[in-house]
């Protein structure tokens, strides 16, 4: 879901950078309130998500995706910590590997590091059955992040002078595909959560 350089127009780049910078600064301040245990989990979790994102799922004849990990990060270290985790991953991916553009880094942080993280967190927090909650958190985090990415792409490209024409293409394509592929994200998020609750209950609590 990493938007490369060239896809977004300058206005969208600036606007998304602004939102991303504000939320990342706020998150950096807020993680001071995390317990030492949660805080020390941040670098390890970021490295783990970086590696997990390298494991693509190419589906025969169709469309591919890789694990994003935003909901999992939010569940383990809270939404502010989750945003920091994803920002670290996206920053290194963009700067060292040019995976995701530099002009679109703000948008990628917004989509995966903010929208997906907070969607995952809110669902996890408010759905009472935690096993179901982790599945829904993973699934819908990808779906919403996909829709917002579609919004950015659609607003960047106005075809044939028709207002909002781009959106009529990008929202269904991005939302639809991510709603399908996001199910895998939901299953992985739930699986990792269940494994950690069994083996290391301290990691998941609180």
């Amino acid at each position: 879901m990493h938007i490369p350089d060239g896809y977004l127009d300058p206005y969208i780049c600036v606007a998304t950078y602004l939102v991303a910078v504000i939320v990342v600064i706020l998150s950096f301040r807020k993680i001071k309130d995390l317990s030492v245990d949660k805080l020390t989990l941040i670098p390890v979790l970021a490295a783990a998500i970086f590696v997990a994102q390298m494991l693509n799922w190419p589906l025969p004849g169709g469309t591919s995706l890789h694990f994003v990990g935003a909901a999992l990060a939010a569940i383990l270290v809270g939404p502010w910590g989750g945003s920091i985790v994803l920002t670290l991953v996206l920053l290194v991916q963009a700067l060292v590997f040019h995976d995701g553009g530099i002009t679109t880094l703000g948008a990628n942080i917004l989509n995966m590091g903010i929208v997906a993280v907070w969607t995952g967190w809110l669902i996890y927090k408010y759905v009472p059955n935690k096993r179901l909650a982790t599945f829904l958190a993973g699934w819908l985090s990808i779906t919403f992040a996909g829709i917002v990415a579609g919004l950015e792409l659609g607003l960047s490209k106005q075809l044939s002078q028709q207002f909002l024409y781009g959106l009529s293409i990008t929202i269904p394509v991005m939302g639809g595909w991510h709603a399908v592929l996001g199910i895998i994200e939901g299953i992985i998020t739930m699986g990792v959560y269940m494994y950690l609750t069994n083996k290391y209950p301290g990691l998941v609590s609180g």
Partner: protein
Amino acid sequence: MKESVLRYKKAFILLLFLIVISPIFGVILANLLGYHEPLDIAAELLGLNETTEEINWTPFLDYSVPGLPPEVGYIVSGLLGALVVLLLGYIVIKLRK
């Protein structure tokens, strides 16, 4: 940092294992079956142009390492990337503790 590395020893061993097998997913299967994200589909429909190759600053583009076969480059990239992420992460928490 040392304390944390020891504490999460098992996690790091798992990560090393995943990095070693990562070319199966990121290189071999991706070449065999084609890697095509929903984003690529949307961009094609809109006629958007990627400028990644024209404006590039890194020798490690797309998790490759110059002079190494793609599979090995992917593993080296995985190690390098995970280490940089880890290091930045420790700097962040050092500033926040």
